[in-house]
C-alpha cells in the first residue's frame, strides 16, 4: 500500500517507460488491455442479449445492427481480444503450474500467443468483412 507522503512520486508499477520492450512484457500489457476491452464489451453483450430475446422486430433490429459497420467492428475487436486473453491466460496458468518458467521459454511462449492473436485478427477480418 502507499504509505509515503503524497509529495513523493514513485514510478508507476509496471515501468513501461523504463524497461526495454520485450515479447513477455508486451504479452503482459496486452493481457491487461484485452481484459479491459472484454469488460467494456459486457454492457454491449447485455444489450444484444436483451434485444435478441424480446420481440421478433427487436431481434431483426439487433441483427441488422450487428451486420452494420460498428457492429462488425465490435465483433472483430471482441473476438481478437477474447482469443488473445484466452491464449495468454492459458500461458499464465501453465507458467503458474511451473511449465516454461525459463526466460527462453517465457519469450518463446509470449511470441506464440502474440502470433495466435495476429492470426485470429486476420481470420476474424476475413470471416466478418469478406
Amino acid at each position, binding site marked *: 500500500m502507499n504509505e509515503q507522503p503524497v509529495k513523493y512520486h514513485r514510478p*508507476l508499477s509496471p515501468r513501461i517507460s523504463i524497461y526495454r520492450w520485450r515479447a513477455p512484457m508486451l504479452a503482459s500489457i496486452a493481457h491487461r488491455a484485452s481484459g*479491459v476491452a472484454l469488460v467494456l464489451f459486457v454492457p454491449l453483450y447485455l444489450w444484444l442479449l436483451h434485444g435478441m430475446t424480446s420481440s421478433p422486430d427487436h431481434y431483426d433490429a439487433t441483427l441488422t445492427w450487428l451486420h452494420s459497420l460498428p457492429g462488425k467492428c465490435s465483433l472483430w475487436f471482441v473476438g481478437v481480444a477474447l482469443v488473445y486473453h484466452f491464449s495468454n491466460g492459458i500461458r499464465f496458468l501453465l507458467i503458474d503450474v511451473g511449465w516454461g518458467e525459463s526466460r527462453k521459454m517465457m519469450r518463446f511462449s509470449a511470441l506464440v500467443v502474440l502470433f495466435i492473436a495476429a492470426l485470429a485478427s486476420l481470420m476474424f477480418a476475413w470471416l466478418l468483412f469478406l
Partner: protein
Amino acid sequence: MRTVKEPGSAHGGLSDWYWQRLSAVVLAFLLPLSFLLMLMVFSGAVDQQGLLDILDHVASRVLHTLLILALMVHAYMGLKVILEDYVHMLAWRIPLIATMLVLMSGFGIWWLALIWAWA
C-alpha cells in the same frame, strides 16, 4: 508459488490468486461457447427461435449463470489489480474500486434477471 512463504501483509494474497485462477478456468470453458453462439446468430446458422430454444434450456441457464458469476469475480479482481497499479492516490483508488464493484454487481444482477426471466 512453491517458494512463497508470506501471503502479504493483508493475508489476502493467496485467496485472490486462487479465485482469479479458478474463475479463469471456468471462463476458459464457457466464454468461447457464448462467443461461438453469438457468431452463429450473426451468420444466420441460428435464428431467433433456435437461440431462444438454446437459452431456454435449463443446462444453458445454469452454465450462463456460472459464466456470469465467474466473469464478475474475474473482472473485479483484474480491474482491481490494474487500478491498484496505476492509481496511487488512496483517496481516488478506494472510491474507484468501490464504484466499480457496485456497477459490476448491478450489471451481474440485471444479466441474471435476463437469463432467468422467461419461463
